[in-house]
C-alpha cells in the first residue's frame, strides 16, 4: 500500500469524571490512507498497550455510522471535517501526511466525561423516556395497512427518525442545545397518524425533561444541522416549537401522565 502517513495527535486524556483532564501528544505512524479514523486510533492504542500504557478510551461499536456510539470532536468539528458522516466513517485519506489532529470529547455540562473521549449521554435516554413513544402495548393493535399514510409523510417521518442519538448537535451548538435531537423524535411521531393522540402531551414532557437536563436554548445558528451526520433538518425544531406553543396556549391539559404504575 502506498502513501503511508505520519501524524501528530493532541488527545484529551481524563481519568474519570472527577479528575481534571489535559491534552497529551502522541505520534501516529505508518498510517494507511484507507484506514478509518478509529482504526488509526486502534493502531495508536496497540502501541500504547505494548508499552503497558493505558490506551485512549473512546466510545465506538458498529463502525458503520448507525449505532451513534462514536463521538469525537476532531479539529473543531463533531465527527471531523467531512459532512454527513460519523467519525467511524471518516477515513484517513481526508488528512495530509504530517498533519496535527486535535481530538476532544463532546463538551457539554449535560454530557459529563466518563473517561478520555467518552461522555455520559444518558440525558438523551431520559428525554426519550419522558415521552418519545406511542403508548401502545404489545398485541391488540390494528392491521398495519388499515391507516394509509401518504408516502411524502412517511418519508418525512423517516428522515426525522434517522437520528442516531450521537450528540453531535449538542457538541456543535454554542449553547449546548439538544433541540435538534429532541425535535427529531417529536416530529417523527407528530407527523404520523399513530402519534397524534399523545402529540401535545409528548412535546411538553420531552421539552420539560430537556430543560431539566441542563441543555441550553436554541438561538438559530444552525450549527447542529450543519454538523449532524444524518442531516436532520432545522425544520424539526420549527415543528417542535409550533407544537410546543400550541400545547401551551390551547392544550396544556394534555400534559403527560408522570404517575408511575398502571
Amino acid at each position: 500500500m502506498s502513501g503511508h502517513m505520519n501524524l501528530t495527535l493532541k488527545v484529551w486524556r481524563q481519568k474519570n469524571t472527577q479528575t481534571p483532564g489535559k491534552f497529551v501528544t502522541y505520534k501516529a505512524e505508518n498510517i494507511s490512507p484507507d484506514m478509518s479514523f478509529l482504526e488509526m486510533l486502534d493502531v495508536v492504542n496497540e502501541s500504547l498497550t505494548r508499552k503497558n500504557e493505558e490506551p485512549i478510551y473512546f466510545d465506538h461499536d458498529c463502525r458503520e455510522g448507525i449505532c451513534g456510539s462514536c463521538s469525537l470532536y476532531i479539529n473543531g468539528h463533531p465527527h471531523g471535517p467531512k459532512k454527513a458522516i460519523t467519525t467511524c466513517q471518516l477515513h484517513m485519506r481526508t488528512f495530509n501526511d504530517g498533519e496535527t489532529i486535535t481530538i476532544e470529547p463532546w463538551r457539554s455540562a449535560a454530557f459529563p466525561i466518563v473517561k478520555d473521549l467518552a461522555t455520559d449521554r444518558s440525558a438523551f435516554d431520559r428525554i426519550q423516556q419522558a415521552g418519545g413513544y406511542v403508548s401502545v402495548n404489545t398485541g391488540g393493535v390494528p392491521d398495519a395497512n388499515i391507516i394509509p399514510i401518504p408516502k411524502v409523510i412517511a418519508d418525512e417521518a423517516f428522515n426525522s427518525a434517522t437520528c442516531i442519538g450521537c450528540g453531535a448537535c449538542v457538541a456543535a451548538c454554542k449553547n449546548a442545545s439538544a433541540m435538534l435531537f429532541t425535535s427529531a423524535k417529536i416530529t417523527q411521531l407528530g407527523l404520523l397518524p399513530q402519534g397524534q393522540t399523545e402529540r401535545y402531551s409528548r412535546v411538553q414532557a420531552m421539552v420539560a425533561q430537556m430543560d431539566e437536563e441542563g441543555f441550553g436554548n436554541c438561538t438559530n445558528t444552525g450549527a447542529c444541522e450543519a454538523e449532524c451526520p444524518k442531516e436532520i433538518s432545522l425544520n424539526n425544531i420549527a415543528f417542535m416549537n409550533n407544537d410546543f406553543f400550541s400545547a401551551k396556549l390551547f392544550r396544556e391539559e394534555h400534559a403527560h401522565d408522570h404517575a408511575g404504575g398502571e
Partner: protein
Amino acid sequence: MSLDAKIPQGPLAEKWSKHKFNLKLVNPSNKRKYDVIVVGTGLAGASAAASLAELGYNVKSFCFQDSPRRAHSIAAQGGINAAKNYQNDGDSVYRLFYDTIKGGDYRAREGNVYRLAEVSVNIIDQCVAQGVPFAREYGGLLDNRSFGGSQVSRTFYARGQTGQQLLLGAYSALNRQIHLGKVKMYTRTEMLDVVVIDGHAKGIITRNLKTGEIETHAGHAVLLATGGYGNVFYLSTNAIGSNVTAAWRAHKRGAYFANPCYTQIHPTCIPVTGDHQSKLTLMSESLRNDGRVWAPKTVEIAQKLQKKEISASDVKEEDRDYFLERKYPSFGNLVPRDVASRNAKEMSDEGKGVGTTGLAVYLDFAEAIQRLGEDTVRAKYGNLFDMYLQITDENPYKQPMRIYPAVHYTMGGLWVDYNLSTNVPGLYAMGECNFSDHGANRLGASALMQGLSDGYFVIPYTLGDYLATIGPKPVDKNHPAFEKTKQDVIAYNNKLLALKGTKTVVEYHRELGHIMWEYCGMARTEEGLTKAKAMIKELKADFWKNAIVTGENEEVNAALERAGRVADFIELGELMVTDALNRRESCGGHFRLESQTEEGEALRDDDNFAFVSAWEFTGENQEEVLHKEELIFENVKLTQRSYK
C-alpha cells in the same frame, strides 16, 4: 440429560394456538411479585423487556453499551419478512414456513419455524402502531421488496435502515416502561456469569463498566438476548463490541450450546483491503433485487482488472459471466446467502476474482440505472451507495461495486426448547443468541423477524408458564451461590489483569480469526479442522501466558473487557471446530468439501445427521459432550435444495 424440545403435538398450524392455551398463566396481581432479568437490548431483548413489563412483571434490563438504543440490531439494513401477502403474489404463512425450512437446508424444527411465520404478521402491525416509518407506496400502503431464497415480495423495509427503525420502535416501548417504573435499566453493565441455585437460574453477576464494581442481581428468571458470535472470526459485519461472553458463561454453567458450526457468510460485503481493518461492512442483500453479480469469463481479463490495466466498464458484455443468473435461472441473483457466497468464492478460487487482491466479484447496477434512472436507484439504496463510497472511495453509480463474502450471522447458539428455555430451568435465550429457527442457513430479513417474534410474541406467553410453576416466593439473595459466583468472577478478572506479557489481546483475537476463517469458514475439511483444533489449543495456552491486559478493575477498562471476551471466543472457537468436525455432511452454511453434489452444492446426509448438536460443557480443557436432538419432519419432504 435427555433433550426434550417440547414441541406441541397436533397439526402444524394448530401447535402454537393449542400450546398457548395449555400454558399456565400468572394472574395480573401476582405478576408484580416476579422479577425478571433481561440481558441485552437489541430487538429480542428490548421487545421482551417492554412486553413483560407491560404485563406487570418487574424487569431489570442490562446492556454493555452506553444506551439500549445502540445494540447491534440497529445496524440491520435490508428488511423484515412477514407473510402478509399484501402484494397478492401468492405468499402465505405456509410458504414463509416452507421457504425458511428449505433455506435452512432442513436443519431447523418445523414447529418453531411455523410459529415464526405465523406471528410474523403481528410484528408488522405492532411496529406500525409504534410509529415505525416503513417504506410506503404512493397509495399510502406498505411497500415490499424481495430477498434471497423466496419468489415472493414479503420484505418490509425502511430504506436501508430497517434494523435501526425497528430497534428504535422497541427502544421506545422500553423507554415507556422505564418511565412507568416497570423496567429498571442498567447501561454500561456487562453480564459475566449466571447464578444457578438447585439447578435453576436465579440471577446474574455483572461488572459496572464505569466503576468496575462486580454486582449481583437476583430474579425469578434470566433471559439472555445477547446476540451472535460472529466476531469469533475477528473480521465480521458485527459491531466491535458484539461478543459471546454472556452466552458462553451461561454455557459453562450448564446451558448446552447448539450447532456452533452453523455460521452465515454473507455474500455481499465490502472486500478486505489490509491488516489494519477492524471490521467488515455489509452491503444489504436488498441490493440483489437490482444489482447483477458477475465476474470476468476468463482468468486473463481478471488479471488485467486486478492489475488495474483495465476497468470493469472495459469488459465487454460477452466477456462477463453473470454466474448466479447462469447457474440458477429461477432464483438468479436472489439465491440464498450460502449459495451466493460459495459461488463468489469459487470464482475467486478459479482466478476470476477482481480488485487488487483478486478476492472480489462485481455487483453491477448499470442495468438498473438504465432501467429505473439514477434517482430511483438513489431513493432505494442511497445510504448504501454512500457507505460504499465512503469506505472505498469509488462511486458505485459509475462503476460496479466490488463485493466478497464476510461473516455476518451465527445460526448456532444456546440450545432452547419450543418455550425458548435452555436446559437450565429459568434460563432463557432469545434472538440470535439461541439456535432455534434458521437451521443451517438463515434467509435474509429473517433475523429481525425472529428477534421480535421471540421478544414480543413468544416469551410473554412461555415465561409465564415457568413462573406460575415456581411461584412468586422472592429469590433469596443471601443464598451462598450469589457470593460464590461473584467471587468466581472476581478471581477470573484478576487472573486476566495479572497478564503482563508481550502480545496484545487484539493480536490474539486477529490470530484466532485467521484460524477460524481459514479452516472453519466457507469450506471445511477433516484435515483442516483437525489442524485448527490443535492451533486453537496452542493459542489458548499462549494467551494465558503472554497476553497483555493493562489497567485495573476499579475503573473504565476497555482492555479488561476485551480480554474477557477474546478468552471466551477462543474457547468457543474450539467448540465450533469440534462441531464442524463431528458433522460429516454439508448443510447450508456448513460446507464440508468431502460432502458435495456433482455440481458443487451442499450434500446433506439426512440418515446420519438430521439432528441438532447440543454440546455440554464438562470442565476446563475437557472435551465437550454431544447430545443429539433428532429433527422430525412431518410436513415437508427432505430433498436436495434446488434454486435452479
